[in-house]
């Protein structure tokens, strides 16, 4: 949001109702998900979403370090969201910043809401998200990548967690904002959905929306999440689908 600076506000919505990149209001950017690209992690996923490139890895459940974080009755879920220095236009200084810490916290809490952590007391499930190329919506891309990585790591959970941001551009509610829309739009509403229950486990908002617009945005986000959910499942099936009749042959 904000930071309009001296730059000119681009035309965010054409008279035909098309956005800066030609999308309709309810259209997602191209999304490609690869499950399991990394070799050291217990689970991993790479997400290319519009001009975002995000890698996620999961380690665990494993022994907790530092040990004082250990919980007697469940696994502690730790998340580190980090942006590579070269992932944004103006080089980001490496290291922890307040934005990354906040995003890490809300993502960890979203996963705590769906992971059956009580199956692994006194252990840690560590989620690492590295943003390599950013173009608005990195926390949602990170969540999607991390969720596929968790499934790839065999972690038990209620469901996969599709996520998307809905925003408001040129007065209209629009799905999956890209950078110009995020910079010059009027609102941004990232969310993550548990498809199994229909509930939201990550929800943030910044900008201006009327209650009616918000209601519409929530509906649009849920529809978007369902479409993303299918891509997440497709990525996992691509990696794990068994050759037909392999079982019969072995038996």
């Amino acid at each position, binding site marked *: 949001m904000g930071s309009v600076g001296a730059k000119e506000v681009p035309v965010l919505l054409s008279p035909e109702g098309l956005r800066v990149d030609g999308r309709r209001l309810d259209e997602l950017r191209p999304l490609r998900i690869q499950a*399991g690209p990394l070799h050291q992690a217990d689970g991993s996923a790479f997400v290319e979403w519009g001009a975002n490139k995000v890698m996620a890895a999961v380690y665990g459940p494993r022994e907790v370090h530092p040990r004082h974080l250990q919980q007697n009755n469940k696994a502690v879920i730790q998340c580190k969201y980090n942006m590579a220095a070269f992932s944004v236009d103006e080089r980001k200084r490496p290291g922890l910043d307040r934005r990354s810490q906040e995003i890490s916290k809300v993502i960890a809490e979203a996963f705590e809401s769906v992971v059956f952590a009580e199956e692994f007391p006194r252990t840690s499930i560590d989620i690492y998200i590295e943003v390599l190329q950013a173009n608005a919506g990195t926390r949602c891309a990170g969540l999607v990548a991390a969720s596929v990585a968790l499934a790839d790591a065999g972690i038990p959970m209620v469901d996969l967690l599709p996520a998307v941001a809905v925003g408001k551009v040129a007065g209209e509610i629009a799905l999956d904002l890209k950078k110009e829309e995020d910079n010059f739009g009027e609102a941004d509403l990232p969310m993550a959905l548990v498809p199994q229950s229909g509930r939201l486990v990550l929800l943030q908002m910044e900008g201006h929306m009327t209650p009616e617009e918000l209601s519409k945005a929530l509906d649009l986000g849920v529809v978007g999440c369902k479409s993303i959910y299918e891509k997440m499942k497709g990525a996992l099936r691509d990696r794990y689908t068994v050759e037909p009749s392999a079982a*019969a042959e072995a038996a």
Partner: protein
Amino acid sequence: MSQGHRSGHRRRGRGDSSSHPPGDRILVLPGQELPAAGLRPGRGTYRVGGKVYASILGLLSPKPPFVHVVPLSGRYIPKPEDVVIGTVTDCQGTFWLLDIGAPRWAPLHMTGTPWNVEIGETEKYLRVRDSVVVRVENLDATGRIGVTMIGEGLGKLEGGTIVNVSPARVPRVVGRGGSMIQTITRHTGAQVAVGQNGRVWVNGSPEAIARASDALRLIDEEGQRRGLTERVESFLVASGGSDESGPTLPPRESAHRDAVPGPTAPGGPGDEPGDSDTLGSGAEDY
């Protein structure tokens, strides 16, 4: 990132699981509702409002009265009676901590060994980075994994090396009734012991170890393709070596007489026929 797959699960084309004929393995994903009419939620599942869902990625496994999901990935989840291979990560006064590839390290108490260990002298018997064959005895609600080294085929490993495969791949490494291990030992002359946790001990001549290790990696990477046994066999034939050397080589001289597990295959670690309801049942699920 277009290349690079962790060993174990190569892409085998897209498949719509629902179109598979009955009897085929059906892949399910977390949150997927399972066909569970009349069945109770088993491992890898959960129930909400009368419906049963998968909680993990895996293969659907209805075993009335339960429906289970058998994992295809993830860390080794211990169960009692599993024989596993571990590495010592820490020596304490009365116990060692073992990395068995499980979520937690497993304490091996000094009384769980065939030795008369004095308090404070654990390091005289096992040191950090030593490898051992132990059996899982019990699991408690805190996730503590109790293991013992008392029993046939259990003890410290000397010589050879350890090859890691995915724990989900263990049944295929063992093969039906130990057939896959027999194939490997017959063609390479190596001695092979498979831990239920996916750690495989291989011993023999350097050549035998190299060829057996390659065969294990092949199974780990291509374990879900059809014709695996034939391909492992032709791989071993192509890589040379004798069929005559027989399944066993004398194990290397060992510090502890009882320490070297026998050549695996039926009855050894990794093959537990009868427990058809577990991942270790092995071949049944495949």
